[in-house]
């Protein structure tokens, strides 16, 4: 599809490029995937609101030509909930780092999923706090070295997809910045799906996580993604146990529970009927 290759021309604010991200950082790849998903769905810029948190990935709004609201660390989903609850017809996409979306913002994440509000959260999981220098996050693997776990991370990490699925989201998927055509589809399907959609984008931070854990340069880390990601439904996945360090990618959960706005509309209809009765 020739148009999609350059979808960024429609949705990117090219005057802001080159962007701030480090050489080889997957954030730019994830951003490209988002623009292609928006283009495939033919969403006009003025009907899209991108809400971002604080962090490297949270800076993505600076490079977008859609509507955008850049809030505070951890609160992006709450800002987005206000936008969507007030204006259900808008497409609201929420971009958060793992720290932003799942560590400081974990409470909003589980409640957005529980409410099943029709937002699409794209969490770039880079295994650490990139923006502030590579500190430990709730997604840093146990034992990994970060700037605040010099002897290894004593804590366990979250499996974000399982967390969000358990909390009630309608769509849960994981992709990587190596598997781009698939990532485009996952984000596209997440946006198209009614209810809360969650896409985890695995994209280890080369500058901090990669360097500290001796994973090699960005290209080497991309190769690791290629090796370690297992497609759900593939022959390898059917073998059962995943080898240490491997993870599933693809659509991990999907259901059709009613979304917040639909349920809300029912209550409001009752209230409006009463409101007109009494006046």
């Amino acid at each position, binding site marked *: 599809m020739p148009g999609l290759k350059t979808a960024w021309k429609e949705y990117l604010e090219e005057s802001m490029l080159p962007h701030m991200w480090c050489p080889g950082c997957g954030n730019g790849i994830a951003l490209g995937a988002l623009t292609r998903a928006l283009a495939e769905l033919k969403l006009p810029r003025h009907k899209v*609101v991108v809400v971002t948190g604080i962090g490297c990935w949270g*800076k993505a709004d600076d490079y977008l030509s859609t509507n955008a*609201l*850049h809030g*505070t660390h951890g609160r992006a989903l*709450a800002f987005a*909930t206000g*936008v969507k*609850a007030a204006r259900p017809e808008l497409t609201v996409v929420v971009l958060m780092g793992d720290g932003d979306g799942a560590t400081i913002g974990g409470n909003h994440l589980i409640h957005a999923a529980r409410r099943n509000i029709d937002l699409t959260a794209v969490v770039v999981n880079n295994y650490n706090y990139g923006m502030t220098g590579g500190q430990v996050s709730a997604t840093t693997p146990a034992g990994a070295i970060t700037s605040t776990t010099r002897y290894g991370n004593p804590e366990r990490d979250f499996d974000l997809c399982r967390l969000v699925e358990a909390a009630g989201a309608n769509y849960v998927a994981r992709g990587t910045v190596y598997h781009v055509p698939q990532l485009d589809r996952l984000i596209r399907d997440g946006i198209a799906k009614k209810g809360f959609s969650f896409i985890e984008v695995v994209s280890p931070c080369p500058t901090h996580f990669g360097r500290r854990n001796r994973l090699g340069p960005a290209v080497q880390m991309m190769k690791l993604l290629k090796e370690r990601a297992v497609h759900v439904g593939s022959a390898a996945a059917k073998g059962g146990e995943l080898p240490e360090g491997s993870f599933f990618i693809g659509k991990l959960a999907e259901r059709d529970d009613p979304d917040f706005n639909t349920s809300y509309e029912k209550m409001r209809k009752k209230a409006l009927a009463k409101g007109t009765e009494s006046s």
Partner: protein
Amino acid sequence: MNEPANGSKIKDKNESTVGRGSKETRRLFLQGNEAIAEGAVAAGARFYAGYPITPSSEIAEVCSEKLLEAGGVYIQMEDELGSIAAVIGASLTGVKAFTATSGPGFSLMQENLGVAILGEVPCVVVNVQRSGPSTGLATRPAQADVMQARWGRHGDQHLIVLSPATVQECFELTVTAFNLAERFRVPVVLLADEIVAHMRENVALPDPAQIKIVNRKKPTCPPEEYLPFKPDPDGVPPLADFGSAYVFHVTSSMHGERGYSQNDPANAQAKIRRLFTKLENHLDEILLVKHHYNREEELDLLIVAFGCTVRPARAAALRAFGRKVGVLQLITLWPFPDALVAQAAARARALLVPELNMGQVGREVERVVGKAKPVFGLPKSNGEGFTPGEISARIEEVFACLG
């Protein structure tokens, strides 16, 4: 009395001219919190996001019914950080949005209130003050969030704070709060207190058609020329709605007129300065006080009071036989009404500031009056309101001291 050109009108001596004499005026026996909810609906608010906390919860409860009946949205968020965030998101879609809370929740809202200030997002936050610090004498009255309301966030910023003293004012000032928020693209804090919020009084709810409502300025330029942070000559930029033909960015980062983040120091200085001047250049529209005395006369003592302290202060003033004691009620607490306090102070021998905190407004009054007049305080922070007798006793002490 200073009356805002755009607000609901509040007259001396609790006299309301809003819809006065109109057949449509509804007279109700309401609690302060209920009156705030009624005021919000009357002002056009159609979105509430909040988290329950005494003594503010009745506002949420009433809104969960009335806002839906008016076709709006009520949502109980997972916490107060999320509540104010949702209010900001909703407001940017063009809906008048608000939240209500008390001390602990107000503390949690501070960071995102900063987003609303820098992002110039109109919204209203009701803080029904309760005693602190921390859980303190939870649910007991206090007026100790005056400074937090003004300075609770990091960074340089300005906002508007109004304080009601009666249930009628709870209604009217809620309307004013929305009007000022929309007029100046700024968050407005309605700083109520447990006593005013839980007190029940007769209120006159005017015919909605008689209430002056202000809506935010929308852009009129072609969409591709819209700059969401380019001020009009009055210092206030027009604000579009998300979803309209105008595509725009709002960010908590320092930004230029386009709303994209920008690090240029000159731009940052100009932006911060404008956050101040857009309010300071329009004080005539913002500052509200009531003089509960004859302004022609010289006073022996001017009591400066706000919120729940106004009523006992006025009772004490009436009891000060043989001495002329007047009460200056501060409605706008921030920006602090410097000039109005100074003018009133000029015609008084001394000033007294009773307040349910350790002297937050007293210090402001001292700053304004300087060495020109003695300023006496009456701080109280034990979780109880003032009785007129307590203030009378202090008045006697003040006169003994003045000789």
